[in-house]
């Protein structure tokens, strides 16, 4: 129904414009009243757009793959272990690392809102915050994994972690075979954001070529 689609898009567009105007109006009022400093707003945006993102988590995972002592520290108490690599703070005050094994796959969700480990993964993607993921991850994890093109062996146990408190979860995926002797930098390139949420697997040496 092309006509329907057209109306829908038009409707969405005008609503977004209205939101845009409201945001701008409120921002102006808040700045004029001195409640917010526009330079601080710019810094907040820059931090999460440019500095904090899943490459942070990838460095943590790569170090855990390369260094057994670090891996043990990460699995025992992730927050200080992650701080060793330089990441800490808001929405990552209490982090727990979850180890995937050939028999066990971990997957993280927040059914109630959008809790996500910001210091290591940045801000969550839209799908993580969306109703399809939040509703289905807990009851239909294999179906959700299929949406991501991931099929696990039938005898792999799947553990879902619903982030209902201020504990944030980081999945430690399995190190891909064929990476013996690789440097941490090279290993980090195999670590995808989704593999640290549990909706994906790391790249392999073949798939990353």
């Amino acid at each position, binding site marked *: 129904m092309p006509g329907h689609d057209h109306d829908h898009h038009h409707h969405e567009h005008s609503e977004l414009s209205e*939101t845009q105007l*409201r*945001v*701008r109006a*409120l*921002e*102006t*009022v*808040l700045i*004029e*009243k*001195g*409640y*917010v*400093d526009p*330079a*601080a707003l*710019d*810094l*907040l945006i820059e*931090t*999460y757009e440019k500095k904090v993102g899943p490459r942070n988590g990838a460095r943590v995972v790569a170090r855990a793959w390369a260094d057994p002592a670090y891996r043990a520290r990460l699995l025992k108490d992730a927050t200080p272990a992650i701080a060793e690599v330089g990441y*800490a*703070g*808001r929405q990552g*005050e*209490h982090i727990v690392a979850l180890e995937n094994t050939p028999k066990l796959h971990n997957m993280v969700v927040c*059914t*109630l*809102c*959008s809790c996500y480990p910001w210091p290591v993964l*940045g*801000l969550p*993607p*839209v*799908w993580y915050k*969306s*109703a*399809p993921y*939040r*509703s*289905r*991850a*807990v*009851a239909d994890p*294999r179906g*959700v994994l299929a*949406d*991501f093109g991931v099929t696990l062996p039938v005898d792999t*146990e*799947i*553990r879902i*972690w*619903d*982030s*209902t*408190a*201020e*504990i944030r979860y980081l999945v430690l995926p399995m190190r891909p075979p064929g990476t013996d002797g690789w440097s941490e930098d090279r290993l980090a390139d195999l670590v995808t954001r989704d593999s640290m949420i549990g*909706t994906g697997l790391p790249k392999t040496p073949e798939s990353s070529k």
Partner: protein
Amino acid sequence: MNGAQDMGGKHGFGPVEPEPNEPVFHSEWEKRAFALTLAMGMPGGWNIDMGRFARENRPPAEYLSMSYYQIWFAALESMIRERGLVSDDEIAAGHSLRPPKPVKRVLAPDDVAKTLHRGGPTERETNTQAAFKAGDRVRAKNIQPLTHTRLPAYVRGHIGTVERVIGCHVFPDSNAIGGGENPQWLYTVRFDGRELWGADAQPGTSVSVDAWEPYMEKA
């Protein structure tokens, strides 16, 4: 509250649709709504639980038809309005029409990095003993609070096993409604898929929630 935010186990929302090479923000106003929300926490004086309650506390049809940052922005507007920091006529005019209310602190550019780095840890000292230990079987209480809670509906009334005693943490049900932090013991509790979803459960699956002691009873 049993609002639209409590989505676990609901049907009909369709497939998960990941966006390839997704940008962090999808438009300029999303960036501003995000930054305003973070920055206003300091002068606004609200806590994270009040923020979450302000987001979920709206008619389900409205919640489900709004985008994520539209919900954030609507919550920000309502918290600002409730505290009398800005009036409707000022939002309509797009300008301040009267002097500001005194606020405790404003987020200065020089404080952004250290404020984010400090975050808001929720663990608190306690001299109470945890009522449960790892391995205990517990039942999530069948409660129906009208205000903010972090016990999802899909586990209520179901039996799980305490996997870990996390520590004593700020209790959102109290903190969200101005009742103070009222710290309580927090546990990771794991539920077998069959316990939650019956014969329709996928074999070999389980779900854990992080649940405060007042949510649980001995099973």
